[in-house]
């Protein structure tokens, strides 16, 4: 009985919370929605109805996909595909590298572990922009300019992802790994069979870090991969913006297309976070 009352109360405060949450969500989405609407109208209409704000600001008088057609027929499609490919490989390799390192730093006792972790943390404090120039000349000497490998490599060793996963691994009761050691399971077995399955939510979190870093990456592709064949989406969009007489309609269409991929990734990530909640329940 008390349970039912408590649950009803919880649901009522939940609905009340909605009054706080929906405006924030609207605030987050409004600029993007406006960009999407702008991508559907002819270029010269974008700035016409900005002030005073009216229905026309958000409802185009004519909806057309001309901007999208133009963008998809341009070299932008290749740039988008390059971005998807480069980001996917970076996330997969980055997760493998970071989780292995995080596991060793959290679980395997060896001398100098704390110092090594310190070096890892400091390594992500060095702004990538600051080292991009010396790094780019090294990459050019290694003949990696204008290659996908050149784009992918810097995104793999990510101190933030290692930091996050180590924090999570430390939270797993050591009795688990001690018992497994007693049973003769190797460190790699413990990593693969115990820690990885338990850390799905954190892996998704670390994957999100790697994804965002690579998807957002701008200065590095500009330095190392300027050739059209390996151009990535952010650089292509910036090219739109820097052309004389910017076509805002096409730029917003390109921006919208670039946002669709992360939208799908985020939907997937949210589901993982939600199901990790469910599995926490099971564990108890």
């Amino acid at each position, binding site marked *: 009985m008390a349970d039912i009352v408590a649950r009803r109360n919880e649901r009522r*405060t*939940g609905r009340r919370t*909605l009054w*706080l949450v*929906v405006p924030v*969500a609207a605030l*987050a*989405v409004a*600029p993007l929605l*406006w*960009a999407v609407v702008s991508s559907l109208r002819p270029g010269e209409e974008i700035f016409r109805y*900005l*002030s*005073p*704000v009216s229905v026309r*600001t958000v409802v185009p008088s004519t909806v057309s996909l001309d901007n999208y057609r133009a963008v998809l027929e341009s070299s932008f499609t290749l740039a988008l595909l390059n971005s998807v490919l480069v980001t996917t490989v970076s996330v997969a390799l980055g997760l*493998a*590298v970071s989780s292995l*390192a995080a*596991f060793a*730093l959290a679980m395997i006792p*060896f*001398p100098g572990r704390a110092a*090594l972790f310190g070096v*890892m943390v*400091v*390594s992500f*404090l060095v*702004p990538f922009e*600051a*080292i991009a*120039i*010396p*790094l780019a000349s*090294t990459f050019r000497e290694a003949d990696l300019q204008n290659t996908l490998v050149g784009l992918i*490599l810097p995104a793999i*060793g990510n101190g933030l992802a290692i930091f*996050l996963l180590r*924090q999570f691994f430390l*939270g797993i009761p050591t009795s688990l790994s001690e018992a497994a050691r007693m049973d003769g399971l190797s460190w790699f077995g413990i990593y693969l069979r115990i820690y990885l399955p338990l850390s799905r*939510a*954190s892996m998704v*979190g670390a994957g*999100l870090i790697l994804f965002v870093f690579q*998807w957002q990456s*701008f200065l590095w592709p500009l330095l190392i991969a300027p050739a059209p064949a390996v151009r990535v*989406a*952010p650089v292509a*969009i910036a090219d739109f913006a820097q052309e004389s007489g910017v076509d805002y309609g096409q730029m917003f269409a390109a*921006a919208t297309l670039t*946002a669709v991929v*992360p*939208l799908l990734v*985020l939907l997937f*990530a949210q*589901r993982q*976070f939600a199901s*990790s909640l469910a599995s926490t*329940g099971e564990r*108890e």
Partner: protein
Amino acid sequence: MTQAPPRPRAGRSRNRARLRTLGTAGLFLLPALTGLVFLRLVPSVEAVTSAVTNRLGEFSLTNFTYLFGDPAFLGSLKVTLLFSLVINPFQIAVALFLAVLLTRHIPLVGLWRTLILLPIAIPQTVSAIVWGVLFRPDGPLNGLLGTLGIPAVPWLVSPDTALMSIVILCSWVGVGYWMTFLVAGIHEIPRSLYEASDLDGAGGWKQFVHITLPGIRRPLLFVLVADTVANFLVFAPVRILTQGGPEGSTNLIMNFIFERAYTLADTGSSAAATVVLVSIVIVVVAAQFRLLPGKD
């Protein structure tokens, strides 16, 4: 005499076990270490080297003495510190507040989380361009204010409001991102703790202080450190929208470094400024590690 005493042999096998552990750890760490050495440390050393040498390649601190006598650099240092003092507490407070709200039983909770997280996924070049239009004096934001009877704000064109505009843009991008890590942290807290405190009649605020905050210590420390670092390094919005102006009011240190390196081709002072920036970041992060309980 021929029989070896048992103790050293046990010691030797313990040594061997220790060596084996070290080898295993080495294998786990090898890929990450290779990456860190070649992709981070080596170029960092190159940056430090070019900061502390003069044109002839001799050791010299002239880059630094020149830098600290330069009003533009001192100004950018001041702007960066002001920016950090405003944006970090603001972003973390909002992210924490939203994380608490979005771990309650509300309808379509995943949808709201995703919508709030969405801006981080947009390439910063795009965000900057969209907000550049929103911030225009004749743009939609002022149009909206006008409809509400509020006088127009000069946003990016006045030195009094430009930095605030950058804070708004960066918070729009980042808050949902930091919120996500805190949401995951709150999910790791056993429900039974809340249920027990419900029975004790503890209110929402008490639950927050005594259960939620201690429960998310680790993710909170992570967010504190990572957000601070990220905000010291803000670059793209400034580069695209203000180039540090008006009157240097948004000249964040990364913009200063970029300008020295690319516009003025002054590698020495841009490398020196980078060394100063990284030192500040390390000091601040070390302080955060010490101040927060439960470091490990």
